[in-house]
C-alpha cells in the first residue's frame, strides 16, 4: 500500500456515516424511530430519518415516553429504535430500569454522546455527563456497543437482532458525530 493509500484509509476510519447507520437499522427490521432531538445525531441521522419513506418517525416530548412506546410496539410485533442523547438516557433511567431491564423488553437505544471530544474514549472525556454514561449503562446490566467510526457500523444489525431474539435492551453509543 502506498503512503497516500494508507492516509486515505486512516481518514476513512475516522468518520461515521449517518446514512450507513440508517441502512443497518433498517436491515435489522426496524420500522419506527422514536426520538427527542439529539444535536449529536441531528444532521447525520434524525434529519435523514425524517425524510426516509420506509421509516416512521415518532417525535415525543420526553425520553421516557420512548421506552413505553417501544415496549408497546414490540408486543405488536414492530421493531423500534430509540434515538436520544445521553442526557435523555440519564433522564429516562427509571423507565429503562423498570420496563427494559426488570420487565425484559427489547428496547434498542441509540445514545448520542453530545459534546464528547473527538478521538477521546467516552470514559476519559472531560465532560462529566459523557464520562458517566457508559458506566451507567453497565450498572443497569445493559449490553452496549460503541459506534464511533464506520468500522463499528457492522455491530448495529446483530445487536438489534439479538435484542429482539432475547427480549433484552441494548445500547448503541454514538461517539463521533455522524455525518
Amino acid at each position, binding site marked *: 500500500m502506498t503512503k497516500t493509500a494508507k492516509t486515505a484509509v486512516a481518514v476513512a476510519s475516522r468518520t461515521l456515516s449517518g446514512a450507513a447507520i440508517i441502512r443497518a437499522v433498517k436491515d435489522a427490521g426496524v420500522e419506527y424511530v422514536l426520538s427527542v432531538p439529539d444535536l449529536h445525531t441531528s444532521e447525520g441521522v434524525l434529519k435523514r430519518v425524517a425524510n426516509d419513506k420506509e421509516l416512521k418517525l415518532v417525535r415525543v416530548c420526553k425520553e421516557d415516553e420512548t421506552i*413505553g412506546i417501544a415496549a*408497546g*410496539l414490540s408486543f405488536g410485533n414492530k421493531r423500534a429504535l430509540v434515538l436520544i442523547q445521553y442526557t435523555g438516557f440519564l433522564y429516562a433511567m427509571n423507565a429503562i430500569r423498570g420496563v427494559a431491564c*426488570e420487565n425484559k423488553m427489547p428496547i434498542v437505544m441509540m445514545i448520542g454522546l453530545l459534546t464528547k471530544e473527538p478521538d477521546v474514549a467516552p470514559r476519559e472525556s472531560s465532560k462529566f455527563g459523557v464520562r458517566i454514561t457508559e458506566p451507567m449503562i453497565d450498572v443497569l446490566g445493559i449490553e452496549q456497543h460503541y459506534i464511533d467510526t464506520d468500522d463499528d457500523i457492522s455491530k448495529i444489525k446483530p445487536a438489534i437482532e439479538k435484542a429482539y431474539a432475547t427480549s433484552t435492551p441494548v445500547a448503541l453509543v454514538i461517539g463521533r458525530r455522524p455525518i
Partner: protein
Amino acid sequence: MPGRMNRVAVMQALKKRITNEIVVSTYSCALDWIAQGERDLNYFSHGAMGLASSHGLGLALARPERKVVVLDGDGSLLMNLGTLVSIAGQAPKNLVLFSFQNNAYEANGGHPIPQANTVDFPALARSAGIPNSSSIQEIGEFERRLPEILQAAGPTFVNLHIEQGPPRAGGGYEQLYTEARRAALRRALA
C-alpha cells in the same frame, strides 16, 4: 365539585362492552380491571409510573386494526403530560385514553395530586391537540356513552371522575406483569 363514580362500577360497565380491544391498565386501575376476569388482550403497564399511555400509543401504532383502550390514573398522567401532545401528533384513530381522576396517589399512600379538584384534564388534552376530549361524572352517563366512545375514530380522551379508594401501598402491582400474561398477549397478537 363534580360527582364521583365508583371505580369498580366503572370497570364492571367497561367489562360488559369490551370484546377484542387491547386494554392497557396500570396500578389501581389494573387491580380493579383484572378483578373483572382474565383475558389475553390485557396489557399491564408496570415498572415506571406514568407510561401506560405511552405503552398504549405503541400498541395502537403497531396494530391499527385493533382498538387500544388505556386505563390511566390521574397521578400517572400528570407524570407524563407530554404524552397527550405525542398522542395528538400521531393521532391514532384506534386509541382511547381514559383518565381515572380520584385526585390522589392511591398507590403512594393516598396523598392528593397537585391541584386536586382543580386540574382540568380534558382541557389539557384538547389544548394538546386531542379535540375529542370530555369528562364523565355519573355511571349512567358512562354506560350510555361507552359504546360510542369505543366506536368513534380517535384519539379519544375521556376523564372519569371517581371516588378515592383506600391507599394500596405495596398493593401487589408487580404481580400483574407476569410471564404468563405477557405470553398470552403475544399469542393473541401474533
